[in-house]
C-alpha cells in the first residue's frame, strides 16, 4: 500500500521518528520557555544539561547499580541541583541585565561542561542498555512499533501536559505567571520570589536532564549529544514563541513530525526544514506562532 507514491511502512516509520524527535524538542523547549519566562535568561547550557542527564543515568548504572527507572527519578534531581548551584552563584547576578549576558554566560558554561565530559569520556559515545521491561515491540499491522519509543512519546507528552497544567491552572502556576510579569509586586504580597526563581531554574534543568535519560537508550551517551540538538531546539523555541508553554509543546511535537515527513518526501531538506520554517515565522510573526508581542 502506498500514499502519494510512498509506502505506508516508510511513512509511519518516519512519523514515529518524527514524534520521538518531537518529544525531545518539546521537553527541551518547554524547559527553556519556563526558564526564560521567569528568569529572563536564555539558557544556552540546556543542551549540556540534557547531556548531563544521560551521563547521570550512565553513572547511576555503572557506579551505583541503579537502573533506568531509578535514573528517571534521580538523574533529573541530581542535575537540577547542579543547576540550582549555578543559578545561586552566577545567573542571579544577571537578571537586571540584557538577555545577551545570560546567553553568553550560559553558552560559556555549555562549552566548559561539554569540554570536561569530552576530555574524560571521548566523543565516541557510551552504550546504555534499554530497560528490559521495554525491550521488543509490537506489530500494529501497518508498522512495527518498538515499545521503548512508544514509552518515550507517551511519557514526554504526559510530562509536558502536566507541566502545562501546573503552570496554567494551579495556584502555584499563578504565582509563576504573576512573577513573570511583576516579580517585585508578587514578592511584596509575601511570596519568596528569589527562591521561586531558583527552583524554577532547577525544574527547567531537571526537564532537560529527564530528556537526557529518555534519550540514553536511543542515542547512546555522548558528551556532544546536547550540542547537536540544542541548535534545533532553539529554532523550535523561536517558532513557537519564547516563553509560551503550550507553544513549546505543540511546536516541539509538530516540528518533529514535519521533519520526519520531510525525510520521506524530500530527504535533502530534512536537516534544514526547521530553519526554513524559523526564517518564515520570524518574517511573518516575529513573536512566534504562540508568542505574545511585547
Amino acid at each position: 500500500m502506498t500514499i502519494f507514491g510512498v509506502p505506508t511502512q516508510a511513512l509511519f516509520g518516519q512519523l514515529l521518528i518524527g514524534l520521538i524527535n518531537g518529544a525531545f524538542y518539546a521537553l527541551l523547549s518547554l524547559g527553556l520557555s519556563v526558564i526564560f519566562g521567569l528568569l529572563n535568561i536564555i539558557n544556552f547550557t540546556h543542551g549540556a544539561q540534557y547531556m548531563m542527564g544521560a551521563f547521570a543515568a550512565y553513572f547511576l548504572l555503572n557506579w551505583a547499580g541503579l537502573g533506568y527507572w531509578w535514573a528517571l527519578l534521580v538523574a533529573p534531581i541530581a542535575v537540577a541541583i547542579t543547576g540550582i548551584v549555578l543559578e545561586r552563584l552566577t545567573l542571579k547576578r544577571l537578571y537586571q541585565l540584557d538577555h545577551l549576558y545570560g546567553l553568553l554566560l550560559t553558552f560559556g558554561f555549555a562549552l566548559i561542561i561539554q569540554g570536561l565530559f569530552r576530555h574524560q569520556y571521548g566523543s565516541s559515545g557510551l552504550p546504555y542498555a534499554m530497560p528490559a521491561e521495554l525491550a521488543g515491540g509490537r506489530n500494529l499491522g501497518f508498522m512495527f512499533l518498538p515499545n521503548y519509543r512508544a514509552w518515550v512519546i507517551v511519557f514526554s507528552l504526559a510530562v509536558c501536559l502536566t507541566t502545562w497544567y501546573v503552570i496554567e491552572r494551579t495556584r502555584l502556576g499563578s504565582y509563576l505567571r504573576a512573577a513573570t510579569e511583576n516579580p517585585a509586586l508578587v514578592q511584596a504580597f509575601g511570596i519568596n520570589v528569589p527562591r521561586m526563581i531558583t527552583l524554577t531554574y532547577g525544574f527547567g534543568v531537571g526537564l532537560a536532564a529527564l530528556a537526557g535519560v529518555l534519550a540514553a537508550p536511543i542515542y547512546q551517551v555522548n558528551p556532544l549529544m546536547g550540542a547537536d540538538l540544542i541548535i534545533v531546539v532553539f529554532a523550535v523555541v523561536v517558532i513557537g514563541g519564547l516563553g509560551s508553554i503550550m507553544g513549546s509543546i505543540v511546536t516541539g511535537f509538530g516540528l518533529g513530525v514535519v521533519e520526519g515527513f520531510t525525510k520521506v518526501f524530500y530527504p535533502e531538506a530534512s536537516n534544514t526544514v526547521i530553519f526554513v520554517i524559523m526564517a518564515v515565522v520570524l518574517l511573518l510573526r516575529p513573536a512566534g506562532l504562540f508568542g505574545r508581542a511585547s
Partner: protein
Amino acid sequence: MPEPSLAVRDLHAWYGESHVLHGVDFEIRAGETVTLLGRNGAGKTTTLKSVMGIVGRRRGSVRLEGRELIGLPSNQIARLGLAFCPEERGIFASLTVEENFLLPPTVRAGGLGVEAIYELFPNLKERLRAGGTTLSGGEQQMLAIGRILRTGARLLLLDEPTEGLAPVIVQQIGATLRRLKQEGFTVLLVEQNFRFAATVADRHYVMEHGRVVDMIPNAELEANMTKLHDYLGV
C-alpha cells in the same frame, strides 16, 4: 497612648544614585486612616515602597508594632501584616480576575471573607473568568484593593487609588475606605486629591522634597486651606 502601629523615623531612600527620601518622619496609630499629601515628586510613592521594602536602598527606621522592618525583604514584611496596592494597580494580564484576586497569600487570620469582598465590589464577581486586564480601570482598582483585604493584613498601603477614575467610582472607593475604617483596618493613603482625602482620613501628612513638612488633623483642614494650597500648588 498605645505604641503607634507604624512608626517611621529618619527614613532615607535611594533609586540607584539618586537620593529620594531625606529623613521622613511620621506615625500611624492602629485603626487610623492617614494620608500622605504632596506634589508630584515629593516622595509619597517612594515612602510607601520604602515601608514595603520594594525600594533598592533605604536607611533609618520603619517599625511595625515595634518590630524593625528595615533590612527585611518585602516578602517577610508582607508576612508581618502589611499589604500594598500600587499606583499602577498591578493587575496581572496573564491571570484571570479570580486568579488575581486569590494571588496574595493569607498572612494571618482575620482577613475579610471572599463573599464580603464581593459584596463590596459586586462587579468583580460577575467577571471572575475574564482576563485581569480586560476589566475597566475602576474595576481593576477594586480588584487591586479587594485582593489585599483577603490576606489578613491589617495595615494597608494604598497608592492613589482614585487616580484617573470617574467620580462615581471615586465615591465607591471612598465608601469602601470608610467601611475599612469601621472594620478596624489601618490605612496609609497616598493622594493628590485632598478633597477626596478629607472625606476618609483622620490626619494628613504633607511631604515636600523627600521630607514630611507638616501634619494637619482632618478637623483642622478647613482652617489650614491657604497653607495647604500653598504646599500643593493648587
